[in-house]
């Protein structure tokens, strides 16, 4: 009620109040603190709520309801009881933390975790700076046509599916690809980057840069566009060179965006290139390519060990939420806004 009182009165509300006044016969029923009752607000806004319901319903069904399904992580889930998940869950024995114990003793799990973290670090170091550099480059281009064209070209790969991106890389760097073909003409055999486990993580990062670095430029360009030109002008008047202007005007303007994207990335640290890796897992083997997400897929969906996979997924999810909160806290400590406000 206190919240309502603070809200500025709106035209629609006034109309409702007027109607209410007419009906009740009192002169000014809304003269009392608190304004209109929730019943009237519900009546007034029922169309709006009705409109929201399909989306909320879908999210309840496919995002919230499956949360309950995580109970299989504490069971020995037997998928052969019934294809109806609820029946199967009710007929599967509870085993407590047994699955988690298995996980701690499982070398494959630790391997997947290690790959995930290493891949995350490589991507953070190699991928993250690329869009910033590209944005600074494009932003310094004066001719509008060159600018628009290069942007259009660089955005394009973002709209390709991972299947397509991986296929393109295979045709370029694979054993039967373009580079191997050219090298073979010059007498060098056996060039194949796609099946080399040693460089696989860098290959993944290169694919990521090819696909998404151009697209990530958009956010930085938007931030750069919002910098007032007067700042640059004043700096130039004071004798700041091109590089000093970049350091003292441009980069501070980018700081909140960089902080926000870093927080988002760190919060999502355990999610690294699931689809991308799944497509290339066979070529380099599980040892080099398995990450947590693909491990959940291979143990659960492929091998039918649902309970164990759900346990791994649950741990990943819980750690993920903790990471989001921690990264956000850190951003607040640095004086940035982060994902949500304090």
């Amino acid at each position: 009620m206190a919240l309502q009182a603070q809200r500025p009165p709106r035209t629609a509300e006034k109309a409702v109040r007027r109607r209410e006044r007419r009906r009740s016969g009192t002169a000014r029923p809304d003269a009392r603190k608190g304004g209109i009752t929730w019943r009237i607000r519900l009546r007034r806004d029922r169309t709006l709520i009705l409109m929201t319901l399909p989306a909320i319903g879908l999210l309840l069904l496919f995002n919230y309801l499956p949360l309950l399904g995580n109970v299989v992580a504490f069971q020995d889930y037997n998928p052969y009881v019934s294809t109806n998940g609820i029946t199967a869950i009710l007929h599967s024995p509870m085993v407590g933390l047994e699955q988690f114990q298995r996980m701690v003793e499982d070398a494959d799990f630790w391997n997947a975790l290690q790959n995930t973290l290493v891949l995350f670090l490589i991507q953070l170091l190699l991928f993250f700076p690329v869009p910033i550099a590209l944005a600074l480059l494009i932003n310094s281009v004066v001719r509008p046509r060159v600018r628009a064209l290069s942007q259009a070209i660089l955005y394009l790969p973002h709209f390709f599916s991972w299947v397509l991106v991986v296929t393109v890389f295979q045709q370029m760097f694979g054993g039967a690809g373009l580079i191997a073909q050219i090298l073979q003409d010059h007498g060098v055999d056996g060039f194949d980057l796609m099946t080399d486990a040693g460089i696989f993580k860098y290959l993944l990062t290169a694919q990521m840069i090819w696909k998404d670095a151009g697209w990530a430029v958009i956010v930085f360009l938007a931030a750069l566009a919002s910098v007032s030109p007067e700042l640059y002008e004043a700096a130039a008047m004071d004798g700041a060179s091109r590089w000093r202007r970049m350091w003292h005007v441009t980069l501070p303007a980018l700081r909140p965006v960089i902080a926000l994207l870093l927080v988002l990335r760190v919060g999502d640290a355990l999610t690294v290139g699931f689809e991308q890796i799944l497509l290339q897992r066979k070529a380099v083997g599980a040892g080099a390519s398995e990450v947590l997400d693909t491990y959940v897929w291979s143990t659960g969906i492929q091998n039918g060990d649902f309970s164990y996979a759900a346990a791994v997924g649950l741990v990943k999810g819980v750690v993920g939420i903790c990471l989001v909160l921690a990264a956000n806290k850190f951003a607040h400590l640095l004086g940035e806004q982060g994902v949500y406000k304090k």
Partner: protein
Amino acid sequence: MSVTVERPRPLWRASERPAWEEPPTKAGLGAKGLIIALCCLVVLGPLWVVIVTSLSPRHVIDSAGGLVLWPEGITFVNYKELLSGGQVSRAMLVSLGVTGFGTLFSMVVSVLAAYGLSRPGSFAHRALLMALMTTMFFSAGLIPTYLLVQTLGLTDSYLSLILPSAVSVFNVLVLRGFFMNISQELTDSARIDGAGDFRILWTIIMPLSRAVIAVISLFYAVAYWSAWFNAMIYIDDPAKLPLQNVLMQLVQKNTALPTGLSQRVNAGELSALGLQMAMMVLALIPVAVASPFVQRHFKKGMLTGAVKG
């Protein structure tokens, strides 16, 4: 509603650079141009090779020893073969259908939700918004979601390719941010004239938001067109697989060909590589054609999303 200001055309190009900025050095300009050209080449080069190879007849591909860099004689035989019935034509239809219906469904749900949430202070506004936004920070996990889809009996149904990914909260928030920026006077005056919320949405909000609606439709369409994981785990019937999954089979087993065409390849009429490349082109054509049309709206749409999201 926007007012366009006609600026006088500059007499010469240099005037686009502000007066206080030092003129660029020749070397600097050259280096900049070179880097940008290289970046564009890295994107376009592979696409060029793929397209050219898909349009080349068998003997050209054979004499090039694989991928063709420069076209010599253009033929559409690969496309004709792929699209004249068979697995790939069928997969193409499935993909088009799922993308069409999915995008329509997602847009209806998202636009309604975005409008429903666009008036702060309406009943349960905060709670509904929180319910929506919280889903961005967690996911229930693959296994529970899989079990749910199975329990709902959606396996082997096209619905399993649409419903679980129908609502993108980010897209809803971008739409909502745009709707909230539309001036209140317009909707209020319509309301005084007796228009209900559905009518306001249809006759005032939607026409004013064409740009953002185009962008978000593209986002949804691209997501449906590119999706393959859901089809991989939920669809068993090979006749129901979308194009990306058929293409994926080519990626994972480098030599596999769409069924029915291997005989003609063996007979020397067609080139396996040419067919593969033609499939790739089929998979990339819709997005490559559609995206430039909405490209000019990207920044606008992303900006409102960034500010309001």
